[in-house]
């Protein structure tokens, strides 16, 4: 079959109506957009849960704004507002008849049991249903075939299934909110024995559904990762050697390998947990000869590679954007690839740094300490090479660029706080305090989420054929950046001050009362941060239909996706492109433009990087 007929054949199965185009689409680009939508919806939900948690921390056991009962009602029992009457009538019912809301937050005051479910589900949703679906699911699906120059993923059907299984998993996870006993409330880390026996938390099916949902999600991720690996190994366009692959493809390739190896460990641990809960086994129960610490080892053996699954795509996106807007090649391409590979490798041998205080043998602890410290080296290489990319460039401060610069600087803070925790003596002091919460958010919000912003702004024109509104995007960026730092930086101070994480009411602790104002400040910043995201949502949906029409290559970038039509048709390219260059030949001497598409046959005089 000739290339041309193959294309025709392929293209002829498109347009089979709404269902096949938008719902059960096999097209990697549509699946990518579906993952993006799933992630954005879950982002709203997960963010909302976080704001409830923050409310409780700043104004412990006070009614929520808007829906809470009035002060007058609380003092006198006389209903004054509409909400007062609502709470009044709900509270007069018997427990079985009471609605969902009044069980979780009578008169608008969050109960301890619900609070615990809130922080558990906030983290679970953000990690598994926001950052993973967007960075890996959306960008992975959308970008891999376009950037390596092929028509689709190796297994389109598996790809479609991977999305829909993720949706099923999400539905199971959300169902947990509505079962008797409430949703899982053991933290996103689900440590047994708390998680093995309903007697300890009062949670029964919530925890079961949590486990089942994550097992199902594991299947989805496995399908995705097999697809990514196969596609990248087998379907690169002619001339697209490994060392000519864009950095984001390298990142996604490494992430797919991590996913393939790490997720089965989590799945196995979750299955053991479900057996302990439902079938009477005692894998994690000391009374039956099991060991609760076994879970911690399994969870973190998965968990640390998992955090690199969350950050590596962000590093890839940043490495893509910085050269484009500095009009310079990425500084030290090989070192950058090697650094990512070594981060991935090291991520397998550091899990014990989450367990320094669990009572492990100190020689073991020291081994985990040194392996974790060494992570600083590839991290430093990446950071300085990003700076090297800016050095001597011709920098355009577009919105993707601003978000990428935020990624670099926030990653610096998150990485450095990691070193504090890697030095076990200090970690023993700050473990399980707000310091850890600050660290997590500098890497996952400051890192992964700013990378998501950068990626969305950067590839939006290709995805939807229209530009996003730039002034609005700048407002969104600056407000997010400021509110983010106001929210999370003070948490370092709380942590070192001894403020523990996962506590319902800090004001119960005399020595934490001095932090009341700081907690209020953090909560106000968090609400500002949350509201700011509405600007992004508005911009995305508004620009999708009303944005200025984008050309094929609005940023004058070199990589293959910009050689496809905008938005790319089913099958992506008229003819499979041939690659002649490394991806970052910007400002190469001897050619008139300051960029050189990977498909352009021109040889710059005195060019390098081949």
């Amino acid at each position, binding site marked *: 079959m000739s290339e041309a007929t193959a294309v025709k054949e392929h293209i002829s199965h498109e347009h089979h109506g709404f269902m096949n185009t938008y719902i059960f689409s096999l097209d990697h680009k549509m699946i990518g957009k579906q993952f993006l939508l799933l992630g954005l919806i879950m982002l709203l939900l997960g963010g909302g849960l976080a704001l409830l948690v923050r409310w409780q921390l700043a104004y412990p056991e006070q009614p929520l704004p808007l829906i809470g009962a009035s002060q007058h009602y609380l003092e006198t029992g006389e209903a004054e507002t509409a909400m007062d009457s609502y709470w009044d009538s709900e509270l007069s019912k018997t427990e079985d008849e009471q609605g969902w809301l009044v069980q979780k937050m009578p008169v608008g005051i969050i109960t301890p049991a619900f609070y*615990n479910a809130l922080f558990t589900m906030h983290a679970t949703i953000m990690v598994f249903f926001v950052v993973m679906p967007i960075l890996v699911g959306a960008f992975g699906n959308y970008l891999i075939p376009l950037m390596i120059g092929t028509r689709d993923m190796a297994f389109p059907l598996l790809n479609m299934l991977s999305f829909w299984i993720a949706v099923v998993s999400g539905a199971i996870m959300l169902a947990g909110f509505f079962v008797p006993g409430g949703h899982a*409330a053991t*933290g996103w880390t689900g*440590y047994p024995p*708390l998680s093995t026996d309903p007697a*300890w*938390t009062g949670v029964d099916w919530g925890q079961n559904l949590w486990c089942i949902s994550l097992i199902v999600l594991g299947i989805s991720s496995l399908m995705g990762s097999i697809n990514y690996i196969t596609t990248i190994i087998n379907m690169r366009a002619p001339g697209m050697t490994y060392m000519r692959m864009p950095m984001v493809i390298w990142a996604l390739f490494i992430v797919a390998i991590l996913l393939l190896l790490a997720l089965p460990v989590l799945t196995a641990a979750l299955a053991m947990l479900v057996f302990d809960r439902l079938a009477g086994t005692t894998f994690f129960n*000391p*009374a039956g*000869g099991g060991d*609760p610490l076994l879970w911690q080892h399994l969870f973190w053996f998965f968990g640390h590679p998992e955090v690199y699954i969350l950050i590596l795509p962000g590093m890839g996106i940043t490495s893509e954007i910085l050269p484009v807007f500095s009009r310079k090649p990425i*500084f*030290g391409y090989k*070192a950058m690839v090697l650094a990512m590979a070594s981060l991935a490798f090291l991520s397998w041998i550091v899990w014990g740094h989450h367990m*320094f*205080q*669990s*009572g492990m043998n*100190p020689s073991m602890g*020291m081994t985990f*300490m040194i392996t974790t*410290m*060494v992570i*600083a*080296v590839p991290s*430093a290489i990446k950071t*300085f090479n990003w*700076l*090297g990319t*800016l050095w*001597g*460039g*011709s*920098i355009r401060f577009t919105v993707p660029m601003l978000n990428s610069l935020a990624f*670099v*600087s926030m990653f610096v803070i998150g990485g*450095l*706080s990691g*070193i*504090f925790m890697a*030095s*076990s*003596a*200090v970690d*023993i002091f700050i473990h*399980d305090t707000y310091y850890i919460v600050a660290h997590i958010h500098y890497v996952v919000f400051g890192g992964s989420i700013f990378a998501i912003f950068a990626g969305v702004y950067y590839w939006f024109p290709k995805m939807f054929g229209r530009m996003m509104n730039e002034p609005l995007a700048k407002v969104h960026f600056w407000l997010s950046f400021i509110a983010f730092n106001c929210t999370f930086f003070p948490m370092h101070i709380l942590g*070192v*001050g*001894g403020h523990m*994480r*996962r*506590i*319902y009411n800090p004001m*119960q602790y*005399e*020595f934490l009362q001095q932090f009341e104002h700081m907690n209020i400040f953090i909560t106000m910043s968090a609400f500002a941060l949350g509201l700011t995201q509405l600007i992004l949502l508005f911009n995305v949906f508004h620009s999708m239909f009303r944005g200025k029409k984008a050309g094929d290559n609005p940023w004058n970038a070199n990589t293959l996706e910009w050689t496809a039509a905008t938005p790319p048709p089913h099958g992506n390219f008229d003819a499979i492109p041939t690659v002649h260059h490394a991806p*970052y030949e*910007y*400002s190469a001497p001897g050619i008139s433009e300051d960029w050189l598409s990977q498909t352009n046959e021109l040889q710059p005089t005195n060019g*390098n990087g081949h």
Partner: protein
Amino acid sequence: MDKDFVLWPEQASTLASRVDNIYLFLVAVSVFFTALIFFLIYLFAVKYRRKSEDDVPKEISGLLQLELVWSIIPLILVLIVFVWGATIYFDSYTPPADAMEIYVVGKQWMWHIQHPTGEREINELHVPTGQAVKLTMTSEDVIHSFYVPAFRTKKDVVPGRYSTMWFKAIKPGEYHLFCAEYCGTKHSEMIGKVVVMTPADYQNWLAGGPASEPMEVTGEKKFQQLACHTCHTDKPNARGPSLVGVFGESVLLKGGRSVIADEDYIRESILNPKAKITAGYQPVMPTFKGQISEVGLLQITAYLKSLAKEGNQ
């Protein structure tokens, strides 16, 4: 807020200042690198901002020497931090030989403290200054974590095993004691305090409480009540091995392996006797699971320890 704002808890143990020193060193290093990197980003942003559409920068795609510099400097720094941190970490794990022993049992949502002299406390721990204290801890239900911010120490308290931690308090006063590991609905109410007293006050405190019997005496009674002594008779042809002088020594097991008879081993021998069989004996010892509390186990252990001391003499 009538108290002054303090940036971090006071230093009330010998460990605290050592941890704070390395912490402050790390702060200094971090501030330096953050400032350096932010300054460079700012500098490059100003200096290399695109000036015109045909502004063409020099193509620099790498510089090996520079890349080596910024790989090696961080490596050296983290190695320093490693050696320094590891020393403190190792010391924080190794109680001095003269440490006074106190036992802790965590449960939802309180701390149960048992002194060897017999005093029991709930959510309060009295200790003298200048004396190393070693805590042997376990949990009756889920994982808790014994956290005293002013001592800069924290250790998980795990069901089914003993964990230990030690500290030497240096300043009399009351310090907060918390559970740091999330342990269920009322985790945030698991609050206690450590009362540090001068040795003289501590002696008064010991003498002042209701007369209490030392742990090993209670343990001995339990040993009789549960009929342990019927088999462990110390006679040559007894059904069970003599337990005199066993604690802390190495025990030969069936199959040739040997183990040190520590707290965990005693505990396992009582709750799950079939797990390790002493060489030369039949596996006839019944399990006492469900018949004895965590505190009871600690008391019997204290009794067996006292036998060890006598046995060694």
